[in-house]
């Protein structure tokens, strides 16, 4: 299943680990400024194509780098984790990323409102900014899992950039609990296209987040319509940010088109991540009616170094689900994990073309389940097509097992 060489097991190695990626992690901080670098290049050359710089790097160049640089040989032993966690440098990088996201949004909006731009250029910049706003969700994800109150506040502040403050509740308390079960709107089903998935995922995520807060606040004895509802403060912050932008910059028609597109495309990046991270995977129900514990085998991974360096190791996803409060620098790679053929950017791109995505992933899901379609989450509407296509694999597996 694996397309890249796996790292040797580092389970029992003593802590002589030197993090060779230590300074390369700054790429995760610089990357959200990519739209600003694009604007700088436009101002220097006058070429409108640079409005699409982020878009081209993300969907075009990073997948090429993933192919060229491939597997990340660095893997901290378990013994190094406590030391890495205690190193403040890594934490500071995640804090620095927060103002970069604000700068990208504010400068881009200012540019749209004040500089002469063709309509296609406005759209290209909106998509570019949308991509790094998707990454605001990634930064919010990293910070939101931490136990410190300051980190959790930083998470809400950065999530407000993309208008997705409920992610903090939805992801930590919802997705992590329900991952790889039919109850999870953020786990995609085999045969489900990303477009169909998004219609289940986006409203489902909000509903779950709201219900989680409602149940908690009922216990606390407070109204769900209060500032104690952790969804509401970041939501108000989003309203404040966007209202201020429109009031200060003026209701320019290009700006009014630009802002919703960049936000929606930011959400689309999250939808893309949720779509590929657990596609088709299913936890089994135990005798007592609870699902088996989420295992490393219930996430798709990519150990490609290039894309991991701009994603705070999000793609070492199995270890993240095993230890959600663990920081990015300590996440580890393991043998025999469900493996994606390329990093997230390349996967996000092919996800938008469902027949290609299915041809890449469906056989991997079937192999993951040992050919047993009963162990896979299948989209009910696609069950017939999938059984026709892969039913024979199941037969073969049954015969082999006997």
């Amino acid at each position, binding site marked *: 299943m694996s397309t890249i060489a796996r790292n040797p097991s580092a389970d029992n190695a003593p802590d002589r680990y030197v993090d060779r990626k230590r300074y390369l992690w700054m790429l995760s901080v610089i990357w959200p400024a990519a739209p600003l670098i694009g604007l700088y290049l436009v101002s220097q050359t006058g070429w409108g194509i640079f409005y699409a710089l982020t878009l081209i790097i993300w969907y075009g160049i990073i997948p090429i780098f993933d192919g060229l640089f491939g597997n990340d040989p660095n893997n901290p032993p378990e013994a190094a984790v406590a030391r890495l966690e205690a190193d403040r440098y890594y934490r500071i990088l995640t804090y620095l990323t927060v103002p970069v996201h604000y700068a990208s949004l504010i400068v881009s909006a200012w540019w749209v409102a004040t500089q002469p731009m063709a309509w296609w250029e406005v759209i290209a910049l909106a998509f570019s900014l949308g991509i790094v706003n998707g990454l605001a969700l990634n930064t919010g994800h990293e910070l939101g899992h931490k*136990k410190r109150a300051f980190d959790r506040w930083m998470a809400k502040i950065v999530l407000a950039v993309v208008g997705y403050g409920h992610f903090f509740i939805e992801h*930590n*308390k919802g997705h*992590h*609990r329900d991952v790889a079960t039919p109850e999870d709107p953020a786990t995609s089903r085999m045969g489900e296209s990303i477009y169909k998935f998004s219609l289940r995922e986006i409203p489902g995520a909000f509903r779950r987040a709201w219900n989680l807060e409602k149940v*908690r*606040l*009922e*216990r*606390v*004895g407070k109204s769900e319509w209060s500032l104690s509802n952790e969804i509401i403060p970041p939501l108000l912050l989003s309203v404040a940010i966007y209202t201020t932008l429109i009031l200060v910059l003026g209701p320019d028609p290009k700006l009014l088109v630009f802002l919703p597109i960049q936000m929606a495309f930011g959400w689309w990046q999250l939808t893309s991540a949720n779509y590929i991270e657990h596609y088709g995977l299913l936890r089994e129900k135990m005798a007592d009616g*609870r699902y088996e*514990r*989420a295992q490393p085998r219930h996430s798709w991974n990519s150990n490609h170094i290039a894309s991991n360096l701009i994603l705070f190791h999000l793609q070492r996803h199995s270890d993240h*689900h*095993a*230890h*959600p*409060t663990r920081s990015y620098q300590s996440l580890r790679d393991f043998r025999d994990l469900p493996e994606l053929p390329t990093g997230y950017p390349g996967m996000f791109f092919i996800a938008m073309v469902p027949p290609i995505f299915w041809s890449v992933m469906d056989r991997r899901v079937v192999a993951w389940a040992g050919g047993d379609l009963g162990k896979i989450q299948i989209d009910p509407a696609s069950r017939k097509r999938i059984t026709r296509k892969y039913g024979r694999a199941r037969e073969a597996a049954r015969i082999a097992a006997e």
Partner: protein
Amino acid sequence: MARYQCPDCSYVYDEEKGEAHEGFPPHTPWAQVPDDWACPDCAVRDKPDFIPLGMSGIGGVAA
């Protein structure tokens, strides 16, 4: 008052302190915490997974 620890992230529910944010004021006994309550820090383990640690307060941890 007893204490219970999340086996994943080492969060500790201490009956003496409770967990006000989650709606369990100090001195809420573990028995009153619902079974489907998930660890407030990692959310990947539920109440039935928690490990009893023994008593809190004077006398320290008697695990």
